[in-house]
């Protein structure tokens, strides 16, 4: 929660992919709604603030990447709004898109896939610089200025000495190095918003840490707003100011990272937290918790999402209400809300057990 207004916000963001064998994802406007659709993202609200990191967690296929792509406007959305500085920012046309891209940049999930294997680092970064930086006297950057900008960029992502990396091809770089090139490319535009889609999932812990530190530094120094997508809840706790939990394309819970990870409200968040490996919890409490929750089984089909709460089929507390009506986000504590009937004042609400001290930890968020 914040006092400032968000740089980038999503209101009721919705994306339905066409289902079927052919060309999933292609846009087909033929007047009537497609027969079957994958409800990848359904009515998601998000806010990104300057100098803050918002983590989005959730299991595979919950729509995290889709949210990022929607925010970057790489794919058209089915419904909802994207607001940049409070103004509807839906782009029409390529020119508008480039202007938008200048301010909102995305880092792709997979560092091994998001760099073109045939181009050296120099090409990739030069393109980004030429596209987004102007020469002080007008015109695109070139010559010495370009070289200087290149070096500065590489140094900013701690790839020093720059000349050692600038002429390498992606396959000659380690995963961490590639990931940093991808970040450098996004930074070349001097964006206000950085959408980082699992920037570290493929990396081992030590490299992972380096990149998170880099992002934190950018947030602090340049005041960039960052969307940090991950399934690693522990890193969300470490790095993000706020955390939003996504399940089957819907927001289940949102709040400051510390309290979301320490006192999860939503049964799904609890499952997520309990499932995460925790070497400090060697008694296997987490495992036991998962067993207690009895939530084996798989995420619901996004083609025909079950009515009601999407987590209901796996939820140990689910009642008829949960299976028939979809819960809205309910503000449980200041800055914390959960989409669970358990926190409503309905009579037929399920008993999800009230987490201890949920109200107390809410204040730490800004730290």
């Amino acid at each position, binding site marked *: 929660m914040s006092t400032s207004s968000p740089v980038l916000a999503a209101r009721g963001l919705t994306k339905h992919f066409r289902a079927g064998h052919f060309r999933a994802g292609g846009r087909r406007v033929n007047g009537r709604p497609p027969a079957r659709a994958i409800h990848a993202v359904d009515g998601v609200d998000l806010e990104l603030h300057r100098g803050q990191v918002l983590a989005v967690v959730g*299991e*595979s296929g919950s729509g995290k990447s889709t949210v990022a792509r929607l925010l970057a406007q790489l794919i058209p959305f089915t419904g909802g709004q994207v607001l940049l500085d409070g103004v509807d920012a839906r782009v029409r046309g390529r020119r508008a898109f480039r202007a938008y891209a200048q301010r909102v940049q995305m880092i792709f999930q997979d560092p091994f896939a998001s760099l073109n294997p045939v181009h050296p680092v120099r090409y990739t970064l030069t393109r980004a610089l030429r596209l987004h930086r102007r020469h002080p006297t007008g015109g695109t950057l070139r010559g010495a200025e370009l070289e200087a900008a290149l070096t500065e960029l590489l140094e900013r992502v701690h790839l020093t000495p720059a000349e050692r990396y600038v002429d390498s091809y992606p396959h000659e770089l*380690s*995963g*961490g*190095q590639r990931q940093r090139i991808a970040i450098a490319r996004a930074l070349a535009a001097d964006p206000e918003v950085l959408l980082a889609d699992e920037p570290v999932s*493929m*990396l*081992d*812990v*030590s*490299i*992972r*840490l*380096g990149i998170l*530190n880099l992002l934190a530094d950018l947030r602090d120094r340049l005041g960039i707003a960052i969307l940090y997508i991950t*399934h690693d*809840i*522990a*890193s969300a*706790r*470490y*790095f993000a100011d706020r955390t939003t939990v996504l399940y089957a394309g819907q927001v289940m819970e949102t709040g400051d990272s*510390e309290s979301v*990870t*320490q006192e999860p409200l939503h049964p799904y968040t609890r*499952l*997520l*937290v309990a*499932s*995460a*490996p*925790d*070497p*400090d*919890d*060697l008694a*296997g409490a*987490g*495992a036991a918790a*998962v*067993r207690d929750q009895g*939530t*084996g089984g*798989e995420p619901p089909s996004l083609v025909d999402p079950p009515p009601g709460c999407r987590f209901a089929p796996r939820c140990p507390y689910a009642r008829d209400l949960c299976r028939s009506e979809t819960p809205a986000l309910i503000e449980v504590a200041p800055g914390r809300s959960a989409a669970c009937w358990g926190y409503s004042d309905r009579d037929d609400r399920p008993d999800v057990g009230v987490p201890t001290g949920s109200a107390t930890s809410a204040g730490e968020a800004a730290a």
Partner: protein
Amino acid sequence: MNPTETSTQTSTPSSAAAQPDPVLEIRNLSVDYGFGDDPTHVLREVSLTLNRGEVLGLAGESGCGKSTLAYAATRLLPPPGLITGGEVWLTGRDGKRADLLSLSDAELRAARWRDIAIVFQGAMSSLNPVYRVEKQLIDGILAHRPRMRRAEATERAAELLRLVGISADRLRSYPHQLSGGMRQRVMIAMALALEPQVLIMDEPTTALDVVMQRQILEQVMELRERLGFSVVLITHDVSLLVEVADRIAVMYAGEIVETAVARDVYAKPRHPYSAGLLGSFPPLHGPRRELTGIPGAPPDLSKRPPGCPFAPRCAHVMDVCRTELPLLGPTAQDEPGRQVACHLHSQELVGGELPDLVAR
């Protein structure tokens, strides 16, 4: 051998790991990549022992050679991999020990799956897309039990699926009709088909999310209790290993740098790299702490400097580290079950102050 018999053995306690009874012994295994005149020496004289009934975790950053080790030990390393030395002793069910690297093709084929099974990193691509799950389960069984009847094998396949929590009607499915998690479990079921002595699992859960990951690993651990096989579990997720493994071996740049009981590694890492690794992941619970990480970049395996490969990134580097390769051996304190390859802990330094390596 039928499953009912084995279930009587389920009492075999996992504490069996305490008395060393090696089922798999890797000795001085060396592996090169590249057939040219300038190959990359990926593994250098790696030795590792797996005891009966234990779960051995193999950790290390990506690219340090974990998969290579697993594949080389079973001689499944694809070209341009080349085993340039070492031995891999496997104790069969009948108690006979054999060096997998010197077996003939036929003998090796016979030993595979029966004594040593492996679950690969990418379960997504490990199943033949054109055959039903059933056929793939059965053909492994029939290859080793030629006299078994088909119906019996089918029965066994159904049983295996149930074992990993998939209903038997999935036998008729093709791999692409299964979700990632189910495929992974099918692979595990397949690996258990002949009740092998050793199960090697190479990052069986990296592609899955935490919920699924936990489900699968718990299933494997439960089966191990029941069937009494030994597991080599490879992952770079140390927190996971600490949780499920009995013993952990930490690899760095193609060498094992530390092995010890899991809890010991977590609590008191001896090698600076292990310490760095453990200091790099944020804890989920408890106080937020400062994460140190490991400065620098992993070495290029094709151009190894002399000395300890970790030396350039090591906070405790000494002159000797840059010239002399430390060998895996007991620590100065001679802690039981613990071996480290670090000059800080070598015998000569006995008496010197041990720096506090626990970075947390």
